[in-house]
Each structure stands twice: as C-alpha cells, then as structure tokens.
C-alpha cells in the first residue's frame, strides 16, 4: 500500500478545534488530509479552527489549495480559521498566493 507523507491529529480546546498536520503536504498527501479534516469539520462544525503546521516539513502549492479549501469550508458554516505556527517556508508559500491577507497566521501555543 502506498502511504501518504502527511499525518493529522485533532485536539479540542473549548470551542476551538486544533488540527495538527505533520510531514509533507503535496498533492499525494493533501488528498487524504483533506478528506480526514472535512469529515471532522462536517461532524463537529467547530466555531474556531486552527491548522497547526509546526510539524510540516514540506509544502507545495497543493498545501495552499488545502488551506484555502478548509478556510472556505469553515467560513461557509459561519466559523473562523487561522493557521498556527507555520515554518518560514510555509509562510513564503502563503505570501506568494496573497493568503496572508485573508487568513490569520499566528505563532505561539494556542490556549483554549
């Protein structure tokens, strides 16, 4: 079986859902990550969602699609999404697409 290079885990802090993504986010990994997150979002509809990216070692433009897609999904049901602890390389990618103007980027540990 061909495995994805991305890992996802979830933590709830009050009304916030922290989605921790690790590994490499490319087209190959993004598909399974997207499906997993969307299932959780559909079931819980958390008002606040944080994509915690400190464990992401690589991200190409497939990651931009992943973040933008989740942002749109959360916004559609009335929630808010922010990106937490991205590496400089991930920030560079987000800036290239102008995403920092739309999606808040936060650093430091998020407290519920």
């Amino acid at each position, binding site marked *: 079986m*061909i495995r994805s290079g991305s890992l996802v885990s979830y933590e709830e802090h009050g009304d916030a859902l922290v989605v921790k993504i690790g590994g490499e986010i*490319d087209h190959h990994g993004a598909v399974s990550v997207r499906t997993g997150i969307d299932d959780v979002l559909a079931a819980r509809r958390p008002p606040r969602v944080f994509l915690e990216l400190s464990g992401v070692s690589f991200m*190409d*433009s497939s990651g*931009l699609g992943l973040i933008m897609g989740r942002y749109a999904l959360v916004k559609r049901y009335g929630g808010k999404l922010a990106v937490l602890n991205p590496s400089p390389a991930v920030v560079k990618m987000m800036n290239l*697409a102008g995403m920092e103007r739309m999606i808040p980027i936060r650093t430091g540990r998020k407290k519920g």
Partner: protein
Amino acid sequence: MRNTVDFSAEVQNELCMTLPSLSVNEGIARAAVAAFCAQLNPTAVELADLKCAVSEAVTNCIVHAYRDGVGEIRITVKLCEGRMVQVEIRDRGCGIADVRQARQPLFTTDAENERSGMGFTVMESFCDSVRVHSRVGRGTTVILFKRLHR
C-alpha cells in the same frame, strides 16, 4: 534580484531518471533531485526552493498531462559550471494548449479538486528562469534553472 542565467554553461554532472506518473513519486522525485544537488552544498533555502519547484512540475505531469492514466515522467538534472542547476521534467501527455495562460497566477483547469493554480508561479518565484515547451497531444517539457550561491 534574479541571478543571470547562462543557458550554455558546461555540464559537469548529470542524473537521469524515469518515473511513472503516480502521485507517490512526487516526493521521490524532489528528494532525488535534492540529494543529487547536495554535492554542491546548497543552502537549506535553495534546496527547499528547488524541491518545491520540482514538486510543482512533477505534480503537473500527474494531475494534468496524464489526467486519464499513468504515463512516463523523465527527469534530467544537470549540474553546470558556475553552480547552475538545470532540471528538465518531460512528459508525453496531453500538452498545454495555451502555455502563456497556464503560467498566469491562480489559473487552473482543476478548481474542483482544489488545485490552487500557483504551480508555475511557484516555479518562477523559486527559480531564476523557467522554460516551457508544449505541444497538444505530444507532451510538455519544463526546464528549471537555478544558480546556487557560493
């Protein structure tokens, strides 16, 4: 500021590989290119930029060129004099009807699968020069040029 690109620089070492257009090979392709380029002692940022650009080009082959099946992706890495890295990614897929349009930021023909349309923009931003040759029905060749600092 972009580096000057000498397209005729002498080749000092070369790697050639062929991979089927399976998505799992995106990571293998960029890792192999990075490993080969490591002999020039690039900075971590240069290596990350190169990996990203290669990943975009290979993903284009998988997602667009061979959208209806699996085909061959040929990757040639040339280390040239003056610390110039040249990576050629070639497919024999469907080709691009309008290369100029495809290179526009945010342009995508696959929005429903959350393609961001930033592939060529990433390649152009992270490399010194990008050449694209394509013929509909015959395939596409993308050549990335990146000069490494001393």
